[in-house]
Structures are given as C-alpha cells and as structure tokens.
C-alpha cells in the first residue's frame, strides 16, 4: 500500500517572520514583510519573541537549572510550531530569531535558511538569550545577515559576523495607495527619537516653527521640544501625507515617505544616491545643508510635492519590500 502512494507536490514555501514587540519597528515591519512575502508567492506567519526573551533573562537570574528548564520549554514550543506548520525559512528582524542553539539553526532540519534583516543599526550582544555564544549561532551556515548600509555591514563584520549581504530597507506596497491631502505646507515634519543624529537640527527648526516633531513626548521635552505623540502604525501614511516634506535619517522612513508621494529630506550619502535621483528626493551634506534644504522646500512646497510624486513612482518600481525579499530569498 505504502509504495503505491504518489507523493504530494511541493507547496508554497512557508516563511516564519520573527519579530520582537519590545521594538516597535520590528513589530511594524514584520507585518509588512509577511504581506510582501505573500505577494511574491510565499506563505508567511508572524510570531513575536518578547516574552521568551524576558523569561530567559528572569530564568538566568534564578540559576542554571531554571534557565535550562525554561529553554527546554521554549524550544519545545517553537519546534512544534516549525514542524506542525512546516516552516521552511526564517526571517528575523535584527536577530530576534536567535533564542537557543536548539532552534532553527542546529536542530530544526526542515528550516533551510535563516535571514537576519538588520534594521536597528545596533550590533548583537555577545550572549544569546539562553547563554550560548551569539557568534556561533549567528555564523551558522544557514544564516545570512542583511545590513541596510555599508556602515552597518562594517559594524557587523567587526563584531565577527560572516555571510553578510547588503539589503536596504524598503516601503510597504500599501503606502502607495495613501491619498490623504497635504494640509501642512509651512512646516516640514520630523518623525523619530530625541537620540537621533538629526535631533539637534530638529530642535533648532522646531524653535523657529519650521518643523513639527513626532516621537516620544517625554524625551523630546528634555530638549525643550513639544513633540506630538506618534500615531498608531496604520495612521503613519496619513501623517506622511499631511506634510509636503519630511526630514529624517536614511532608514526605512526614507522609502515610506517616498511611497506616500512626499519628499524625503535626508543627509547625503552613497546609499541615498543609489536609490533615488535628484528631483525625487532632497539630499544635503551637513546640518547646514539640510537646514537650507528645509528652507527651500518651505519656499516652494508645490515643487516638493511634484518631487514626491516622482519618488513614489521610483519606489513602486524598485523599493518595495517585495523587491527586497525577492532578492533575499532568490
């Protein structure tokens, strides 16, 4: 009987997207990644590791026996998920997939590849949550690390990571559909942390009423800036669309602003030039250059909006998450 059964054909590969809800960016982008994966022919599920990490730290503080027992329980849960769902690939924001050596890289035979998309800009710690050496896990032959910039790749290399590739962040396709009107033309917006390299410039422009700041209200208050709170993730496109232009660093926000048809104002570097041309974005060297670029935008917001539309077209052609993931998983 067994010999005569024809095997089932191969289904769509299933990708487990691993986030960490301690990190709002990871929580937000993980959903975008899953949707993009589905559009390019993969099946995808998203899961979070926040409480596993919190518990691992607590267990470690309670002693080796507790840590081992908790690790065994966490491994059993994830191993069951991998087997029951039939997970083929793991895609982690930063290294949020890194929990135990017994997961994904060493024990789970059916997981063929693990991809770390490094977005945060920080390097990993030396120790994985359950105490094993992080480098050993991160340098498993299954793992590929994707850095958003040469600078980040250099940092990861210096940490000792191998299998490095340059993969830039991107925008979710949904943002291309954003159609909210531009209602603020006398100020630009800055969305981000008070610890950003651009915080000083944002503070200066805010004091001159040239810029609105969105971010953690308390930390901006320490700089004397009355920031507005960040809206929930689904309202981000509307916020982007409210302003003709956005000042920001070169990260996923660059692509998101562009996808929403608005002008990104970013520090000039090779990464930016590789992604967008003049006429699609505004780039400038140094804080003085960026300040002048803000003034230019405020003098002619219609030109900024026209450039934003060109940036949106370019994003639709080249800078969506599905473009990146097709390359990552090729």
């Amino acid at each position, binding site marked *: 009987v067994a010999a005569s059964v024809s095997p089932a054909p191969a289904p769509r590969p299933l990708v487990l997207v691993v986030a960490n809800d301690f990190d709002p960016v990871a929580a937000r982008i993980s959903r975008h990644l899953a949707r993009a994966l589905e559009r390019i022919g993969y099946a995808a599920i998203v899961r979070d590791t926040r409480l596993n990490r919190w518990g691992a730290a607590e267990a470690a503080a309670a002693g080796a026996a507790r840590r081992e027992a908790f690790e065994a329980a966490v491994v059993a849960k994830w191993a069951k*998920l991998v087997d029951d769902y039939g997970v083929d690939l793991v895609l982690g924001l930063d290294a949020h997939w890194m929990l135990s050596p017994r997961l994904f890289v060493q024990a789970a035979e059916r997981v063929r590849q693990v991809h770390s998309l490094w977005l945060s800009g920080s390097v990993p710690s030396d120790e994985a949550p359950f105490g094993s050496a992080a480098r050993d896990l991160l340098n498993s032959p299954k793992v590929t690390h994707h850095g958003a910039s040469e600078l980040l790749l250099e940092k990861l290399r210096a940490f000792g990571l191998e299998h490095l590739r340059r993969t830039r962040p991107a925008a979710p396709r949904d943002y291309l559909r954003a159609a909210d009107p531009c209602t603020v033309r006398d100020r630009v917006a800055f969305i981000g942390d008070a610890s950003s390299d651009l915080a000083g410039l944002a503070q200066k422009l805010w004091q001159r009423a040239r810029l609105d700041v969105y971010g953690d209200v308390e930390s901006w208050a320490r700089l004397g800036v009355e920031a507005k709170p960040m809206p929930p993730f689904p309202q981000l496109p509307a916020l982007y669309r409210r302003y003709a232009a956005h000042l920001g660093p070169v990260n996923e926000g660059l692509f998101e602003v562009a996808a929403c048809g608005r002008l990104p104002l970013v520090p000039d570097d090779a990464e930016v030039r590789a992604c967008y041309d003049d006429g699609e974005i505004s780039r400038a060297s140094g804080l003085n250059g960026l300040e002048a670029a803000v003034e230019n935008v405020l003098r002619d917001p219609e030109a900024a909006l026209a450039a934003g539309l060109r940036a949106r077209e370019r994003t639709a052609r080249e800078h969506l998450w599905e473009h990146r993931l097709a390359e990552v998983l090729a």
Partner: protein
Amino acid sequence: MNAPIPRGVLILSNDFLTPFAKTSDYLAEAFERRQIPAYVRDNADARLLTYLFSEEMEPDTPRAQQAAADALRDLIAWTGIDTVLSLDLNWFVTPGLLVDDAAIRAIHSFWFDDFRSWSTSPFNPCFPVSGDVFQQHVKHPKVTHHFYGDCQAQEARLLGVTRQRLTRLAAPRSLLHNDEPCVNTDRLAFIGNPGFRGPPHEGAVKLMEADAELDELRAFCRDAILLHPDVHAVKWYEEEPTVKNLLAVAAEARRRFPYQPALEIVRMAGTHYPRAFEYLNEKGAILDLAFLVKLVNRYDRPAFVRRLWKRGWIDVYSAEEEWKPYGVEARPYVSFRDLPAHYRMYAAHLNAPNAIRDATANEKLFEVSACGRMSINLDSPDVRSCYGPDEIALVDSLAALEAAAEKALRDPDAALAQGERARARTAREHLWDHRIGALLGADADLNRKP
C-alpha cells in the same frame, strides 16, 4: 446596523495547540484582505511564564503577569488595535487586561475546545484567578462568544454566558486556488487522530474487528459508561443513587439520537429524575455528566476509519501511536503547509467529528471542500446545514460508509465533480472571509481584489 470597521485586530493564538492556531493565521489573512491590519500573537508565551514562575519563583508571579500585560498593551498602543479575536479564551491573559482597556471595543472568542474544560481548568486563564473574576470576564459586555455547535453554546449558556452566536467554522480562501492533481483514485484518505485520547476499550476493538455497526459501538459505550464509572460518578451514585438512572436514560437517548446535544439530552432526562438533576446542579456537575453522555459517540471516528482501513481502501495520516491500538498503521503527520496538497491528492476523504466537542461541522469539512474534494461525513444536522448531498457524501452507518467509499473508488470522476460543487459552495458561503463579514455585520465584498 453594521458594527464599526476595526482599525486593527489582535488575534491571540496558542501555539501549543497548533491545529487550532493555524486558524489564527487564516483569520488574519481574511482581515488583511479587507485592508484591516491584523496581528497574530501567541499566548503560549505567557503560559510559559506561568511555568517558569512556578515553585520557588512563584512569589514573583505578579512581575510575570505585568510583563505579559505590558507586551500586549504596547502592541495595542502602537498599532491602534481596537478589536481582539481569540481561539477559545486565549485573550484572558491577566484580569482586566483587555476588558478594561478603553482602546478595545470588542473581544470575540471563537470556541474550538469545550467550554467546560476552560471553566474548570486551574490554568485558564494563564495566571489563575478566582472563579468570580473568571465569570466577570467571560460575561463582560465587550465579549462575544462564537460557537460552531449547539451543544457548545448550550454549555456556555448553562454557565451564564448569554452573549453568544453560532459561527460555523470555515476554510481559508487560499485553499480555493489549489490546483494540484488528484493522483490517488484507488484509495481515500483520512488525516487526523482518533479523537478521544487514551487507549480504546478492548471490547470496543473486538467489536470493530467483528464488523460491528456504529449503533452497536454506541450501545457498547453506553453500557461501559454505566459499568465502569469514574471516581466522580461513584461518588454521585453514593450520594444520590438516581443519578445512575438519569445517566442511563441520557446515554440511551444519545445512542438513539447521536447528534442531539448532550446537554439537551441531560436536561430532558433530568425531567424524569429531578432529584438527580438538582443534585448535579448543586454540585456544579451537569457538564461533567454531559461529558459522559458525549462518550457514547467515542468510537464513531475510529470505527469509520478502521472499517475502510480493513478493506484496504484508505490511507491514514497523523497520530501514528494513537492509531496503533485500533490496528491502523498511520503515515506520518502532515504539516499545515502540506495539507492542501494532501487533500488534493485524493478524490475523496473521510471526515468524522471528535466526539468530545459535540459539534460535527469541523474545519476539515470546509477545508476538504475548499480544495475541491469530496468528503464522506456522518449525516448530522450541522453538516447537512452546510452542504447538500450533491456536494458531500452523508452516511449514517458503517455499511453506508462502505457503500459511499466504494462508489467514490469505482467512479472517482463523479467524486471529483462532487468535490468541485463543494468547492463552489465553499467559495460562496464557507470561507473565513464570510465569517468575518458576518462578525463585522457587513456583507463580505469577496470580489474585491486584495
């Protein structure tokens, strides 16, 4: 009146119970098709913390509760989530967490497991609370309970849950677009476990070997329930001897009316034995007795499978160890990813409900149909309300099962045509998109492109 469209939906799953967890991902896909952001999060992680914080770490449990609550609160704040869906009661993480959160407008429990188990287990919710707090949560005005079978709904109503709806299970839309060929027309398939956990009674296996009919097996179970009472039943009989009479009547009624909700049967039997019913009510044991009544159908599923296995007409997948006592050699577990292809490989599938759930229109009924394959089912009112005899096969005995299976093997093209009709019906009525449409109080715009 239509309910407001959710701004964001949190779907709380439990990855320890993966067969149900997969439904969380199907629900998320259906919400996303309506442009409603959906976030699946796993409540098993909070449960792991209860394990970690047991024994000597127990005094620190409030910190673990706080960590679990913070994780969800942060996500809700960042994402603008205003609606929570969960399988069973996985939303009940810590007291007050979601019901007291002003941002959360509605909480929906989709029940797969039976309500009684959740109401009586000390580990539900994740962090144990008193019965009063549990009751306040399950009856909170924000909470609606969705049951896929009448018996589940009746059990919950007995426990005071009035905000409830009948919401049938369904299939994920992706299964409709599955075109793998049918390559096995000389056998049928069954994918699943024998249902009730634990080894079968030797006498039941002997009956199956002797080609006993479903009715004989149900009669065997009826007698076994009375002859081999568990410790609770022994105590009941000692304290109120008429309980045994009530159980005997109820078990016999279930044999005669195998798809009548067990609780309804117990209530009817209780009219003849009011003292016994009152005693059980005072003890809070009515659902325990109803559970025993459900066991009358315990061997429906194994007998279904075994009959065709013995004929060499069926491939069985999953739960190899659990099938062994029934003399059935099962193939390995089929992962969710591989399920659609396995459904499509065969022209026809066997489907039989898990007796413990007392609800017969299970997920497999819809999933096999969505894949354009014919399923052979017990002819229960619930199943019949979802599909007609030109879409699936409905049988009420093992002899009828054999006849339906033989027909499918003799004329697989007819079975495939039947499966295609089942697929069309599923596309029209039985996708998770339809259930969510009903939940939102709006007609599902299923033709809208994602």
